[in-house]
């Protein structure tokens, strides 16, 4: 239904063991497990497809070279690489001297990526997502887009969506619960 990788059953811990062994296959697993997720985030931030590919390369080079600086006690491995993807994308935007990157960021959401349906990785996945997106409340699309894809703080999101700061967390939680229900997670 959703895009999943063949190594989906590999856990973060198993992957990290392989990476620390400098097992070259580990890079392939790493790429298999997370490249699509990160590439969609990069594409939401950097709207140019070619630049997004450059950023993706840069991100994986950074992950591999800085793997020793990842500290498990400070967060998930996925969260660590997600932040690298976001920061690298923002650096890219800044280096290109975008005048109003903030405005640029918020102009459209991640669902926009579906417009390029012929370029989607897997059309079956697309159909599954489109069905799900129809069911998903517009508020959920907005809040996941801002918090997850664009990395807004709770404060920024509450201002953008004009909702009380205290409800951002719980609303997002409800949206993720809908997603998990759909995915049977």
């Amino acid at each position: 239904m959703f895009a999943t990788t063949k190594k989906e059953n590999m856990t973060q811990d198993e992957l990290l063991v392989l990476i620390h062994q400098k097992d070259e296959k580990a890079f392939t697993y790493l790429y298999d497990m997370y490249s699509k997720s990160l590439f969609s985030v990069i594409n939401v931030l950097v709207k140019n497809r070619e630049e997004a590919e450059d950023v993706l390369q840069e991100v994986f080079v950074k992950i591999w070279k800085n793997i020793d600086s990842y500290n498990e006690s400070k967060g998930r491995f996925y969260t660590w690489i997600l932040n690298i993807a976001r920061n690298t994308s923002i650096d890219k935007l800044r280096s290109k001297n975008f005048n109003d990157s903030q405005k640029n960021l918020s102009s459209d959401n991640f669902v926009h990526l579906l417009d390029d349906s012929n370029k989607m990785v897997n059309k079956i996945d697309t159909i599954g997502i489109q069905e799900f997106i129809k069911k998903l409340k517009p508020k959920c699309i907005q809040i996941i887009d801002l918090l997850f894809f664009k990395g807004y703080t709770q404060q920024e999101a509450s201002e953008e969506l004009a909702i009380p700061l205290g409800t951002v967390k719980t609303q997002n939680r409800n949206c993720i619960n809908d997603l998990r229900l759909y995915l049977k997670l």
Partner: protein
Amino acid sequence: MDTKEYIESGILELYVYGLLSEAENIEVSTMAKNHPEINDEIIAIEKGIVALSSSFSPFHSVANFEKIKAKLELKHSGVIEMKPKNWSNYMGWAAAVVLLIGIGFQYQKLGQTNDQIVSIGNEKEKITKELNFLDQKNKAVETSLAVIRDQKNTVVALSGQAVNPKSFAKVYWNKETKVVYVDAAGLPEPPKGMVYQVWALKLNPLTPTSIGLLANFDTNNQKIFAVQDTGNAEAFGITLEPAGGSLSPTMEKLYTLGKV
């Protein structure tokens, strides 16, 4: 803190999104370590958001993956889907091994065949020798038979004497061709160092004349011996004499005797 309440607060989602402060991150991380249900929740949230975002990923080429690996100088040129490649690799090796075993087997076979050819060659040589030997033997028998069958022969039967009454012999005397043969099949093999001597006898007075020795008695299978012409013999006798023969017969060792 009540873990259920903690989970429902929505902080775990923000933890996965990477939106918390460092202090908050450490707090959640510690909670996850101490409460498996929190850790499970975090993993489920992560799976959900990774699946969702992955499904929105625009196409990006395999070339991109190879470029990254080139940048990282990862020599291992594995493509994401490696299994079929591996499988065909193994097939290649398997085929090579099978071929090698096949060649080895054929080589061994060849060796065996060569050995067989050599041994067959040896056998053939042996058989040829045997055949030649049999051929010679056959000719000898034919000759003997021809001699014995000659109608012009005078056949003289020699009967056993006191020394060995069971012994006997025959003399085939062709008076026209003057050829004399002795059939000594009825004589026992002579002891070592001794030889049979054939005598032509005149009876009145008794005059023995040596007409030959039965040399190589043991190797002459037909026991048919050619001896010298007899002149006008009236009787024949065979005595056992020391090797080389004697000038006159040793009558105590007279084995056979017969009148013409």
